[in-house]
Structures are given as structure tokens and as C-alpha cells.
């Protein structure tokens, strides 16, 4: 969809542009959307290990020696994964809250305070992320 147009020599002239709240919201929404799509594929890859694991013997499953459990345990053992999980939550929460904001915008509700609702979703995202840190990071260090 996005194309480049020949608008003369000056079009390429680099400029610094000031972004307002609505523009930041759009950029963050786009960014978090791509991150969530990327996560979806790794999520599918990790969950797919449950398919071979389902054929394992009951004793193996109870002992936690099957492929799925092993994969999850080894992933959760990595500090990087623990930290990325916090980031994932932040991304998901922001995408949800801003999605609600966009829903209201589409319905024509509260368009005058669209910047405030963006700031509110940012603050709420921050609060929820901070609150989640003990749960995600517990025992990682």
C-alpha cells in the first residue's frame, strides 16, 4: 500500500517532526501488533511439542520427562525468557487497552479526550507490568 512518490528533490530532505499523542498511539499499536504476531509463531512452535509428548507413557508424563515438559522447563530456566515474558505482557496489555481506545474512536465516543485515553492506557500498562514482575521473575535469580 505504501509507495514512494516523486514529489521533487525536496521530498527526501530529512526533517524532524514532532509527534502528538495520536501518532504515538498509532506507532505503538503497530509495533505491539507485529510483536504479538511474532510471538504467536514461537507460541505455536513451543506448544507443538505437546503433540509428540501426548504419545508418551503415563509414567514418563508423571515423572515430567516428556518433550513438552522438558521444553517448558528449559525455557523457563533461562533468565532472558523470564524478562521477555514481562515484555510480552506489557506489549499485550498495551495492545488491548489501545485497541479498546480505538474501538471508542471508531464509535465516535470521546474523540476530544483521545490523547488522555492514550496516556491512561500507557500508565495502566506500566502499572500492570510492574505488578507482574514478582510473578514472572520469581526464582529466576
Amino acid at each position, binding site marked *: *500500500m*505504501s*509507495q514512494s*512518490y516523486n*514529489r*521533487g*528533490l*525536496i*521530498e527526501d*530532505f530529512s*526533517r*524532524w*517532526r*514532532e509527534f*502528538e*499523542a*495520536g*501518532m504515538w*498511539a*498509532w506507532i505503538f499499536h503497530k509495533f505491539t501488533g507485529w510483536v504479538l504476531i511474532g510471538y504467536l509463531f514461537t507460541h505455536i512452535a513451543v506448544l507443538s511439542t505437546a503433540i509428540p509428548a501426548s504419545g508418551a507413557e503415563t509414567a514418563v508424563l508423571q515423572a515430567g520427562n516428556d518433550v513438552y515438559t522438558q521444553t517448558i522447563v528449559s525455557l523457563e530456566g533461562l533468565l532472558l525468557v523470564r524478562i521477555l515474558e514481562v515484555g510480552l505482557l506489557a506489549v499485550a496489555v498495551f495492545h488491548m487497552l489501545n485497541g479498546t481506545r*480505538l474501538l471508542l*474512536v*471508531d464509535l*465516535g465516543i470521546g*474523540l*476530544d479526550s*483521545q*490523547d488522555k485515553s492514550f496516556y491512561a492506557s500507557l500508565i495502566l500498562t506500566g502499572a500492570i507490568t510492574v505488578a507482574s514482575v514478582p510473578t514472572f521473575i520469581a526464582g529466576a535469580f
Partner: protein
Amino acid sequence: MSTQLPKQTEEASESETESDVPSRGDERRAERRRRAANRREQRQAEEAERAAADEDTIELRVFRYDPDVEEKQEPRFDTFHVPFEKGMTVLDALMYARDTYDSSLTFRHSCRQAVCGSDAMFVNGGQKLACKTQIGELDEPIRVEPLPHAEVRKDLVVDMEHFYDQMEAVEPYFQTNEYPDGELEEQRQSRENREKVKMSTRCIWCGACMSSCNVAAGDNEYLGPAAINKAYRFAMDEREGEDVKQKRLEIIEQEHGVWRCQTQFSCTEVCPKDIPLTEHIQELKREAVKNNLKFW
């Protein structure tokens, strides 16, 4: 200083006519031109010095580009020091710079009271109407550039043709095939309806919204905020009747019509006449959906 200038000119031309033969006219004119240029340069230097020394001056960095002059084809920024006055606008400062320092500084302006829509510019990273933007509210140095996403003709002047094409694409004029009842000759509008379209009628065609729109920058076919607002003004006008409204909605709901808007609110933020552009675009989206949605 300036009061002595004319006297000097007279003296210079007198001495020249005495020493030179009349047939050497060309040479004399060239000489006079050279001297005038020297004087101008001197005067500009003095003015600049005085302005720089003055406590209350503002620094203006203005984008310069002139495709017709070889030395000016490379875009550059010129710095002007302008004495600050209370209530000074960006346009006032630009006019001072043009009249005092460089008469080749080019920009559009006409009414100077935010009605003609000629002087939309990119000031400190945002689309502003120069005559409506107070210097006192801006951070220094003030950067003045031509509107982004348009071809620059010279200095601060951009080609507005594409913008006007988009405006005309929505047929921005009243049309109807319904006539008033009885003896009335005029098309009467209800007060409520007038209130509904009031804000959208304020548009002055300055092109600030179109320039700020990220989507319009990547899609030349997109109607853009101003044109859609214009379409809103007439589509919401009850006097036009159902047939015409249907025709207008068909223009609006095209692929590159209202659906390209991604509610970034850039247009609403920059509009110098405070038109709620995004609100109007969103309302037209809903109108378009309602128009096509059938449950039977």
C-alpha cells in the same frame, strides 16, 4: 543610517555622469548596480549586527531552495535575527527578514489573519499557519520549512496542485434536485443542521492537514482529511436530498476514501481552524457502513 542613503546615491550618479561619456551607458549602469549591491550588503550587515546585539531578538532558521539559480539548488538554511515585538507572529518575522535582509526570500501570504490559507508552513516540526503562530510560544531557534510531502517550488512555496485536485474530487459545491415546497425560493436550513456542519465549513484550504497525514504521504490517491471534511460538509447538509447524498457517499466510501484513515489524529492536531477532522472522517465511515449494511 538609512536617511543618508538617497543622498549618497545622488552624489554617486552625478560624479559618474561628469566623468563618463554618455555612450558608455552600459558600463555606468553596471557600476551603479555594483555600488547599490555593495551598499545593500553593507546595510544588511549592519542591520544583522544591530539585531544580533539587540537583547530581544529571535533567531529564525529558514529553509532556502531555488531550482532556477544554480548556486541555490542545494537546499540550505539561512539564519535571520529578527527584533522581537510583543504579539509577533512567524509571518511577521518572515516579512521582516524578507524586507530587511533578503528580498529573494519567497513565501505565500495574503490576508495575514488566518482566513486566506496561503501561509501554511512547517514550523519547529509541525504544520502551522504562519500568521496565526505566535513567536512567543515557540522554542528558539525557530525552524521554518515548506510543507512536507509536497514538491517545493522555491523556498517556502510548495506545489498545491495535488491538494486542490483532491478537494475538487469530492465536488465541493452545493447541488440538489429537490426544491423547496410552496413559494419559497431559497433553500432553508434548520438551525440544528447548520450546527452540525458548522465546524466543517471553516476550512480555509491551507493544506496543513494533508501535509501532516502519514497515510496521505504514502498514498497519493487518498482523498486526505481536508477533502473528506469538505465531503462531510455537503453529505451532512440535509438540503441536498437523498439522491445527492447517495452520490456523495459513493465518492467517500471508495477504496482510497474514508477507509484509508487510521485515526492518527495528526490532521486534527494541526488544523489552524480547529476542525475536528478525525471526528468527521469517523462519522462518514459509520455513514458508509450504515448505507451498505442490510439485515434483510
